[in-house]
């Protein structure tokens, strides 16, 4: 099948603006996964992704795994178009939707209906479309009677239900996820699970970062292991998990 995500030798460097002394650099180096380098102006840079290449075909379900700071979130954001590569090239064919931070765009002081609209607008929907589908979102969140309440007054479970309902209503062809999202009480968790299953089992392309091996084993057809910004494994999920276990690769810090 033709690839719809093509990454060629991409690197992502973050300039460190804080003035760090050498011992702080070393301390940071051991705490975060990326590696430090300096650019031609002697600025301190953190290399989050190091010259990586891969292709993802339409409909593929790809899991990203690796220790904290290995570059998973940076790679997801790069595919989402948030971080353009510092060097190299990434080509995306199709529309990408990211569920990286589903609460981004929330106004805690506004009511829930307003927040529903703000979140949907932030995800690229037009107001006309939002008005058409908002009833469906409210129905799914089971928060109809709370829509006039300020978002900040919702319980954690309730707010997650609303966020989940909005985030999973607008799903484009290529879906980027940072951990599986779930929400609410047992009843809603089951509902959320089947919604996620519906999204995952569809013909969409999925790239998901997770620390949970069992989730990746269940939903992914391919596994990419990242470490310090490098791809150390790219292939079959079962073999990848075997590699993690055999080589004692730490996936949770």
């Amino acid at each position, binding site marked *: 099948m033709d690839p719809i995500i093509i990454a060629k030798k991409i690197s992502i460097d973050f300039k460190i603006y804080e003035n760090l002394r050498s011992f702080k650099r070393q301390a940071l180096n051991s705490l975060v996964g990326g590696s430090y380098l300096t650019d031609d102006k002697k600025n301190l840079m953190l290399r989050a992704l190091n010259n990586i290449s891969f292709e993802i075909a339409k409909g593929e379900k790809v899991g990203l795994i690796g220790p904290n700071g290995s570059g998973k979130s940076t790679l997801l*954001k790069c595919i*989402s178009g948030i971080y353009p590569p510092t060097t190299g090239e990434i080509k995306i064919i199709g529309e990408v939707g990211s569920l990286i931070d589903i609460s981004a765009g929330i106004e805690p002081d506004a009511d829930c209906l307003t927040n529903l609209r703000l979140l949907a607008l932030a995800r690229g929907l037009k*107001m006309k479309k939002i008005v058409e589908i908002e009833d469906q979102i409210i129905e799914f969140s089971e928060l109809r009677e709370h829509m006039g309440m300020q978002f900040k007054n919702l319980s954690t479970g309730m707010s997650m239900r609303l966020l989940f309902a909005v985030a999973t209503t607008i799903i484009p062809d290529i879906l980027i996820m940072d951990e599986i999202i779930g929400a609410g009480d047992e009843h809603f968790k089951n509902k959320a699970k089947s919604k996620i299953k519906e999204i995952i089992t569809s013909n969409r392309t999925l790239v998901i970062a997770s620390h949970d091996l069992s989730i990746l084993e269940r939903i992914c057809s391919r596994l990419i292991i990242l470490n310090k910004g490098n791809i150390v494994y790219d292939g079959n999920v079962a073999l990848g998990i075997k590699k993690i276990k055999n080589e004692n690769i730490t996936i949770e810090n």
Partner: protein
Amino acid sequence: MQLIRILITHLVNYDRWFYPGIISLKIRYSRTTLGPLWETIAISIFIGFAGFLWSKIFKIDIQNFIPHLFCGMVIWKFYATVISSSSLTYVENAALIKSIKHEYITHNLKCVFRDFLIFLHNLPICFLVVFYFNGFNLNILYLFLVFPIVIISAFFISYILSLVCLRYRDLHYLIQSLMQLIFFFTPILWKPDQVESKVSLFIIKPNIIYHYVEIIRAPILGSPPPLLSLGATIIFMFFLLFFVNFLYKKYNNRIPYWL
């Protein structure tokens, strides 16, 4: 020009800045009875008392001075709010910028739209004061000519400040301090004809904010916008356009990296 194309697209598809702009204004005044009218009341009380007092102290004709002060303060407040809120725009929207790919200029459109709405709330009080002291004048219609210049320039300034203050975090504080200084150098609390022509030549005329104030103030006070101010603001607007276009092309992609 790529920037103009994107800008027009987002002005036509106004959902992403219009609704959030209205909501951010509503939130700011949530649970208050008078809402944004508090701005108008606060400014009216201050200028009413201060204007009366200063006109007595400096022995200025109250009929000319009070409308001048009212309009100047309301217009200055708009520019000062745009400048101050723009310098933190991207920092305040960091979560969104770092999680969903979108056009970052929508945050500037939202910011300028919200601040302009507040300005429109305060504007009627200027009309009332001018009407009370000087009567009605049709030159007020020049506002329709100058508002596009003001809004477009405010957007460009907003983008420049958001970007530059994001990269250099100290600038926000520097700008706040400078604005206080510029306020006293701009004829708001005093009138240009109160100073010598040398001061006017070296302090008032080179001050672009004075020209931006004057193109709005003059029509409200009953005269057409001065040609010098109109010319200066139009030229400055085009200068801003080219500068914004340069920044957009070179640094817009860097915004998530700088957060």
